[in-house]
């Protein structure tokens, strides 16, 4: 993985960037090279000079404000651009080492299983079970394996009980799970998910990310997930990409990207509240405090940082409680 490529750093360090980019290219399962795209109906680029390398086995989160171009990026990574959406396309996308323009959408989908943002429109069947069957039948999974695959996929997202239900009778969140199960059943090398938890309750969202993490760790499936809930990305993703105005403005290990907390906030991407808190605290009391992401981590970091000063005054602990309160 290339370290953070911020907007400013990318310009000054183009030479070194291409130098280091050569190595991850070989292990990257998906890579974009100066990718730009403008919709035929659009006036300004929806994707602007995107250089993204996704290493095989990585867990990548993509975040950014509405209209930043996240879904457009998903379309480019899944081959829908340039095979379906027309527009001006510059640069290249390589999926499993081959240019996406030179493979058909069907070829790309052997590597990448995608769940698009519009769940409603991507259902092909009337019944949950048939929806999951569809891809398995098409890709020629041996008939003996099919029932097991369907059961596994439904179990993974926790909807075994919905197997015989009609899709039209499901809630939005349940449909999202069905779409996810249909993608998981294919056992792809790359899972590309566009806001898979947008209609899920917090508990189900966590369950989905737990599942993704397990698949990523145990089966080495590369996960690329577009997600608005920063907490989930910070807790589960290894790499974070931040998009704004069609550009990939930050990209790198989650904590490295979070260091740009002030820039993120100006772009409308709020860091987790504990991170905002430790960041503010760090600025107030000076360095020596790591940027934290989870509550537990923050607690132990605070204990460590203030263990010396704790018996000085009671003022400190008082202050600590005050800042803790809004968490």
């Amino acid at each position, binding site marked *: 993985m290339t370290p953070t490529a911020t907007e400013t750093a990318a310009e000054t360090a183009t030479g070194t960037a291409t130098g280091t980019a050569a190595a991850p290219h070989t292990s990257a399962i998906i890579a974009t090279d100066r990718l730009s795209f403008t919709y035929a109906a659009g006036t300004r680029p929806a994707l602007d000079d995107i250089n993204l390398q996704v290493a095989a086995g990585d867990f990548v989160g993509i975040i950014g404000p509405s209209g930043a171009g996240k879904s457009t990026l998903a379309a480019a990574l899944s081959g829908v651009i340039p095979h379906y959406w027309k527009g001006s396309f510059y640069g290249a996308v390589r999926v499993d080492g081959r240019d996406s323009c030179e493979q*058909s959408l069907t070829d790309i989908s052997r590597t990448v299983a*995608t769940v698009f943002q*519009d769940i409603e*429109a*991507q*259902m*092909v069947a009337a019944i949950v079970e048939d929806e999951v069957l569809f891809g398995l*039948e098409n890709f020629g999974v041996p008939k003996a394996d099919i029932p097991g695959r369907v059961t596994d996929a439904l179990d993974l997202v926790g909807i075994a009980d919905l197997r015989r239900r009609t899709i039209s009778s499901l809630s939005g969140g349940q449909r999202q799970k069905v779409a996810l199960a249909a993608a998981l059943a294919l056992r792809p090398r790359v899972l590309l998910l566009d806001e898979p938890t947008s209609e899920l309750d917090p508990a189900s969202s966590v369950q989905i990310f737990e599942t993704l993490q397990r698949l990523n760790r145990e089966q080495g499936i590369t996960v690329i997930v577009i997600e608005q809930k920063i907490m989930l990305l910070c807790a589960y993703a290894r790499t974070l990409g931040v998009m704004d105005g069609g550009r990939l403005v930050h990209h790198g290990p989650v904590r490295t990207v979070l260091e740009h907390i002030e820039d993120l906030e100006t772009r409308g991407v709020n860091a987790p509240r504990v991170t905002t808190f430790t960041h503010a605290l760090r600025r107030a009391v000076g360095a020596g405090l790591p940027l934290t992401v989870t509550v537990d981590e923050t607690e132990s970091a605070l204990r460590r940082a203030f263990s010396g000063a704790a018996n000085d005054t009671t003022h400190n602990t008082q202050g600590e409680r005050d800042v803790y309160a809004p968490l």
Partner: protein
Amino acid sequence: MAGLLDYTDGSSVLHRLNPLTKLVLAFAVCVAAFVTGNLWYLAALLAFSLGLGFVGGIGRVALRLLWTLVRVCAFLFVLQLLFIRAGTPIWLFVTDVGVATAARVSLRLMDATMPLVLLLSVTQASDLSGALVKVARLPYRYAFTLMTALRFIPVFTGEMAHIIQAQTARGVPFDTKNPLRRVSLILPLCVPLLVSSVGRIDQAAISAEARGFYLRRRDSGYKDYPFAVRDGVALLVAAALIAAAVLVR
């Protein structure tokens, strides 16, 4: 009409018949109704269709459907009586030929509709298309198109209902009694609905392709649709219905 073609789950003989057998049976009743002019036989066919509903465990659906059809046909019946002038008058403008013809047309209409609707409501659309592809050798493309069209009907009607609800809430008088005014309010909504549905269908095509649609072959389908003894029996019944229609003409 909403919900009339909805699948009703069950395990009756009718549910377990091969989808193609059901199509043939429904078609046979249709053919029989058009071959015969015998009013008694036409009535018997109607009773047979109703019986199918009860065998399939959807007697209530069958009765509801019958009631809808009776109302439509009563209207047709009166219309025919008004226009058919042949034969000898029996009461005011009504002639004997008029009564017979009107009754025949109305019964035929009911006979042609009932079995098809009833058998479709005990058949899952996916099974119908699966059997059409595997057994009747229909190219999968067409079966898929048909299925998608069927699947999108409730999506669009639902969307339309949403728009109307939202507009009513904003004071647009969709609840007006004047049908012409209602139509003039609804027509402009069709354009945005059409635009959004074209986008939807694009997205559906993309996601089908991204899940290997073009790799699909005739034998890709997981389910098989073999013919069983009960299918043989049902096909014999179908043949008998047509034969009897020819005999009693």
